[in-house]
């Protein structure tokens, strides 16, 4: 046994901030190129149906990989991810809708993929993420102090509260004049109620979705390989021992929760601006949260590649089973039971696909 295979690995565990920043550049550039290829080559080639599927896949990958930071890395059990998606989606949707109304007199898309409208949209995605992150902090701080299952209950309640509150909102104004008559506070209470928020401009496309997928995957990966990731995973492995090793468990749990909420908010924003979406509180309720939880459990709690692959599978599967939509939950349940019997740790467990045989040997692990 030599220590050499570890020399590089140990270095990768605690990258300096500068190293961490530059190490992300190349993969991010690759991700951007892929996103551009999807937008300009793949999308036109496969047509609108499959483009839409690729967008849905991207959004679900963001949701699953981000929930994995909480449920997988830190071993907490959040079942309200769709609640953060809703918060981000409504915040971003309202921002672009009302800004478009006030600035351009209507909710039409302005400019091309890199036009002024897209700038507003990307800004709105980030704002949606930040608002969701703030909600995550408010929910996480009190509930993550406690050990055990409080988080599941609190996040479940949070998702329901968000749904009910959104259902109480007023109709969205249809004309620029009606929109101008509202104060900003009133705008926040005119989000379409239980009928849904329609008219949000359709800015979401393959390029922007897969840019954010790249960002999510990169952040998730850098997190896992950093000191942060070590802290997250040690909490999941043994919270008391982690605390005894000097990990401030509450702080790290809250951090994981806030990061996850941010990306759920971004996913919600992308969803809100997707062609054909009418943002509806019911659609972003418990069932959606449950879908995301299944992706994480199926992929292996803690595995980024596992969550990604599970998200792809579980987005394609319902489309394939479209004729049997009523049986979707039965198929899900059976699949979960099967995985729990055959591989209780999920498809990949805590590890990544390249860390498992037969890939592992080539990388010396």
């Amino acid at each position, binding site marked *: 046994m030599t220590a050499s295979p570890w020399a590089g690995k*140990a270095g990768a*565990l605690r990258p300096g901030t500068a190293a961490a920043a530059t190490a992300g550049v190349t993969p991010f550039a690759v991700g951007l190129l892929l996103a551009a290829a999807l937008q300009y080559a793949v999308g036109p080639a496969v047509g609108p149906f499959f483009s839409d599927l690729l967008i849905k896949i991207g959004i679900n990958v963001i949701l699953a990989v981000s929930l994995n930071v909480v449920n997988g890395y830190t071993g907490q059990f959040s079942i309200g991810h769709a609640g953060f998606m809703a918060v981000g989606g409504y915040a971003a949707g309202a921002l672009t809708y009302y800004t478009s109304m006030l600035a351009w007199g209507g909710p039409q898309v302005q400019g091309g993929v890199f036009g002024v409208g897209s700038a507003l949209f990307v800004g709105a995605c980030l704002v949606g993420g930040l608002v969701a992150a703030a909600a995550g902090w408010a929910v996480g701080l009190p509930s993550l102090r406690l050990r055990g299952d409080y988080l599941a209950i609190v996040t479940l309640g949070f998702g329901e509260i968000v749904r009910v509150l959104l259902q109480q909102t007023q109709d969205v104004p249809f004309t620029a004049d009606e929109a101008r008559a509202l104060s900003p506070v009133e705008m926040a209470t005119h989000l379409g109620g239980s009928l849904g928020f329609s008219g949000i401009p359709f800015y979401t496309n393959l390029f922007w979705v897969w840019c954010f997928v790249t960002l999510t995957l990169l952040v998730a990966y850098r997190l896992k390989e950093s000191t942060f990731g*070590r802290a997250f995973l040690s909490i999941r492995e*043994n919270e008391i021992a*982690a*605390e*005894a*090793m*000097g*990990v401030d468990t509450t702080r790290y749990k809250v951090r994981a929760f806030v990061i996850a909420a941010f990306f759920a908010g971004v996913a919600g924003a992308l969803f809100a601006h997707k062609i054909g979406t009418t943002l509806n509180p019911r659609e972003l309720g418990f069932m959606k949260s449950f879908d995301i939880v299944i992706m994480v459990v199926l992929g292996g709690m803690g595995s980024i590649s596992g969550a990604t692959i599970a998200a792809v599978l579980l987005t394609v599967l319902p489309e394939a089973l479209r004729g049997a939509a009523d049986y979707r939950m039965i198929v899900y349940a059976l699949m979960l039971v099967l995985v729990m019997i055959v591989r209780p740790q999920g498809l990949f467990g805590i590890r990544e696909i390249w860390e498992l045989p037969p890939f592992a040997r080539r990388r010396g692990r």
Partner: protein
Amino acid sequence: MSLVAPGHPLLELQDLHVHYGAIHAIKGISLSVRQGEILTLIGSNGAGKSTTLRAISALVRASGGRILYRGHAIQGYRADQVVGMGIAHCPEGRGVFPAFTVRENLEVGAFLRKDREGIEADIETAFTRFPVLRQRARQPAGTLSGGEQQMLAISRALMCRPALLLLDEPSLGLAPQVVQTIFAIIREINRAGTTILLVEQNAHMALQVAHQACVLDVGTVVASGPAADLARSDEVKKAYLGGH
């Protein structure tokens, strides 16, 4: 924090109380661990030994009394802050991170340290001390035997270079030979300068390696003094050294 000369108290408990809800687990314990010593805390099941260690490392909150470390009151600090002060806790039942490799476990032990070279050197020290850990370096810790896990847990606690090591039943469930090894290592760690507060069921072994001893019973100290004296005391013999 000031340095403590050998023989002076590194850690003092003054009238420590701990409650778990309505349960009064520690009812006013006072003891003092001197720099460079091994003090062993013995007593029957449920006496409050583990609770005492948890209170020191802030895993549970003391409900009364004072915990002085290097002369400063440290109750009220968080667990991670206490680790940062140089107090490492090797919890009961080992508590390794099962899905982490042996090496990753050791790295988490050095969580608060930033000196990568020092960490590597200390991992090397651990591997030299317990060669079996080197062989298992890339194996998930959950697949180690009980004795190997205990060796890992002790090594992991040492990774933060503690001045004071809290060891909770390191011999629990181990074969006699392995127990011998563990105790030899405990002595060696102490000789290398680490003060140790050792909780043990195996009073016989504990009284052999320790300098001082304290006997706990339902949350209070019932006897204390030099370990050799306690080992000779009829009462302790009868109650804890297999006199029944």
